[in-house]
């Protein structure tokens, strides 16, 4: 048996790498049932399988999957070391993790894992601070658990992500703090809930793919592929699974609940003409450059600008909401000036 096994490996090795060091075939180790990360279901393969496929496609290599439960790290790494696969997705690029794994090498990061707050879209919870007086659900022994515990918030602990989110759906907790892939997966399936990043870059975890340290060519190829895919393919795959990216929001801006609500009204009712940045289009003025007072802003929005496309909004948006939009636009202008 043993001799036969090594014989097979020898053949695979020849087929995997050509003389020029190009990767021709990539074998991925992945869990058959661990959505949103991976799944054997071809219709919903999970974002890590999709990213692995995109990497293989970028390298013009064929991808095959060796399905193996990944609940225990040691089992899946053994598959890699024993050459049953060449690539395993989803490892944190930190010194602490790599210290005791001399045979392992990690690729460039293909996404950043963060903690996010998940709550009802109408409940007004949009940040960590909003959780002070609420009951917060977390999964036991996770980074999110540690975060909420450290802040001293009223927390309820569950064993699995599913149980944690069930508690949110039942109303047992007001909000959940969870790792971004799991939170994204939940909100894409449950209308009426939103995920908000906690906005703490210090807690960001860069995630890369693992290869054997000896496979230098493979690591270089995977790094190159990730770099190629970073602009459009990776964000598209991640977005589909509800995983928001750091670039989606201007850095340094934390909005109050009032301004978050104003942003929502602005994006829905105003941004079609004035742009998502409020800097205007040929049909609509640059609101960041609005010269008048808040009262002037309210008046123009209510009565419109005759002879232009600016329609009167009186009766459709309340005066209070228009004032909040004025403040939101001012915040945008302040942020642009800072950048």
């Amino acid at each position, binding site marked *: 048996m043993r001799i036969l096994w090594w014989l097979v490996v020898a053949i695979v090795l020849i087929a995997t790498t050509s003389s020029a060091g190009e990767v021709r075939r990539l074998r991925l180790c992945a869990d058959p049932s661990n959505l949103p990360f991976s799944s054997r279901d071809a219709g919903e393969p999970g974002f890590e399988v999709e990213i692995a496929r995109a990497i293989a496609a970028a390298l013009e290599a064929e991808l095959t999957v060796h399905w193996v439960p990944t609940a225990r790290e040691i089992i899946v790494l053994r598959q890699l070391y024993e050459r049953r696969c060449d690539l395993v997705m989803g490892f944190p690029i930190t010194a602490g993790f790599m210290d005791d794994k001399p045979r392992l090498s990690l690729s460039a990061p293909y996404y950043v894992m963060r903690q996010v707050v998940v709550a009802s879209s109408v409940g007004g919870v949009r940040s960590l601070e909003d959780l002070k007086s609420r009951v917060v659900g977390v999964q036991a022994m996770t980074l999110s658990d540690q975060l909420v515990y450290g802040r001293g918030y009223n927390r309820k602990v569950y064993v699995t992500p599913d149980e944690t989110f069930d508690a949110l759906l039942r109303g047992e907790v007001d909000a959940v703090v969870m790792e971004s892939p799991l939170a994204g997966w939940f909100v894409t399936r449950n209308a009426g809930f939103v995920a908000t990043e906690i906005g703490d870059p210090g807690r960001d975890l860069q995630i890369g793919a693992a290869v054997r340290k000896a496979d230098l060519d493979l690591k270089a190829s995977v790094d190159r592929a990730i770099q190629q895919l970073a602009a459009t393919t990776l964000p598209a795959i991640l977005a589909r699974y509800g995983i928001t990216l750091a670039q989606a929001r201007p850095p340094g801006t934390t909005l109050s609940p009032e301004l978050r609500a104003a*942003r929502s009204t602005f994006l829905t009712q105003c941004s079609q003409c004035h742009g998502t940045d409020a800097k205007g289009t040929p*049909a609509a003025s640059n609101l960041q450059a609005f010269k008048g007072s808040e009262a002037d802003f309210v008046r123009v929005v209510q009565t419109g600008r005759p002879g232009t496309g600016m329609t009167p909004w009186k009766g459709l948006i309340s005066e209070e909401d228009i004032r909040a939009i004025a403040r939101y636009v001012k915040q945008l202008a302040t942020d642009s000036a800072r950048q």
Partner: protein
Amino acid sequence: MVRTASLSLVALLVLSSLLLALPSPGRGADVSDARLLNAERDAGNWLMYNRTYAGWRFSPLDQISAANIKKLVPKWIFAGGTVGDQQMTPVVNDGVMFTTSTSLAFNRVHAVNAATGELLWKYDRRTAEDVGALVRLIPHNRGVALYKDKVIFGTLDAHLVALDAKTGKPAWETKIVDYSDGYFVSQAPLVIKGKVVVGIAGPGEMGPRGFVEAFDADTGKSQWRWYSIPAAGERGSETWAADTWKIGGGAVWHTGTYDPATNLLYVGTGNPAPWIADMRKGDNLYTMSAVALDVDTGKMKWFHQYLANEPWDYDTVAEHHVIDVVRNGQTQKAVVTANKLGYVYTLDRITGKFLSAVPFVKSLNWGAPDPVTGKGVETPGLRPTMGGPPVEVCPSLLGGTGWQPKVYNPRTGLLYIPSNEFCMKYGYVPDLTYKKGQLFTGNTTEHFSKTEQAGVLRAFDVNQNKVLWEWNNRTPLISHTLATAGDLVFQGTAEGRVVALDAKSGQELWSFSLGTPQSGGIISYAVDGKQYIAVAAGGTVRSQVWFGKEPKWTHATRLNFSDVVVVFGLSE
């Protein structure tokens, strides 16, 4: 050579005089059911929005042709007095042209001497101050219907109004529905067998359920109403999660087509609301569909849904042309439609069975119709998430082709499609709540193009199912098209040009600068044996918004808006 040319010119002149002479019921004659049914042969007139029930917009007039196109000059200009949303197609009955001009303040109708441009009468109907957000943003009207001695049109506050065609005095008025829910009428109504058929606008952006309704053309009394979204318990309601059907959109905002042989009205339904697809899980029937309704009862005979749980505002409202196509030697009674999805679809017009779909644009990544069922199969990864980064999707939400009518020339077998090569960066807002009167879309959108020539007029052979020639323009073609028996195709542009092309080759033969974006209908008619081409222009505010973020198009946004009808004839 010279001899052949002059011979064929003589033949053309004889033919055209025959056509012009055909039915001439005398100036101001009533528009009977028989005249509407035979509108195709009534060469000198343009009696309804798409000229005929089949929806072709093909004028049988051939006095103006490639041979004399250089002598085509403006004869008169009529100003409508509004700014910003001229999308109207004029109609002409025996020397009288009826046009509309619309602003947020009023719906306006004019009767004009079609030979001289002299104003005969004008009617203004004031709009209520508390109409919804969409009407305030895009107040427009696409024209009137003619029936017997009346001119019939829909209003910004969701009424149907009939005027005396001779005097402009109101004859009857009907409230269709409560405008405070966001409903209004933008389309030109269609009169079939004494019924005024009108589809409602607003639902796709404002939430309430879309519908088509028929009214008695003599009295304005409602005859039937068909909802594009079934109510709880009705067939198809299982395709809407919980109560989402109540604010599920599905506007029917474009004038339909009709086949007297099947007695079916063919309409396209719009996108569901809100645009955030996850907020209304399910297939969302009967949005994004072709629907055939029995004109007598309003009962649905068949439907074909183009895309289930639609996420990108790709309304499939474009007209379904009634055409007998010849495929593999077999004649098939079909409806043919080119729509926002970027494909030309052919369906059996008796059963609704899907026959074929062929792409006509290159900037297309959303997915493709299943070759057997015709149902859209999406490319994974192109649905945005709420608050997530925008996704690049092609075409843009204006569509591979928009509402601007496609035109069909039965002599060439070509469907002329004003089409667009562009994409959008499309995102969803972080959260969205329904508020009556406010926009209920939840999108953020920026249009862009990967090509220098985003507007492409394509001549599509409906029998061979392929594009035969293309004519290019820098900005997207959100302007109108006309085909004539003079073997000409007229096309407008956002740059304010109207051009005439050879119908068989696409070669540009003539051009005129209107000074304002071409945005309304282009029609042809004849008075006293002389053929005219009428071009409605004036631009749309939205096009400035759409063009604003793409540097390749901003030159067109510098043009001023001015609501005009410019009428051309041969110089004498």
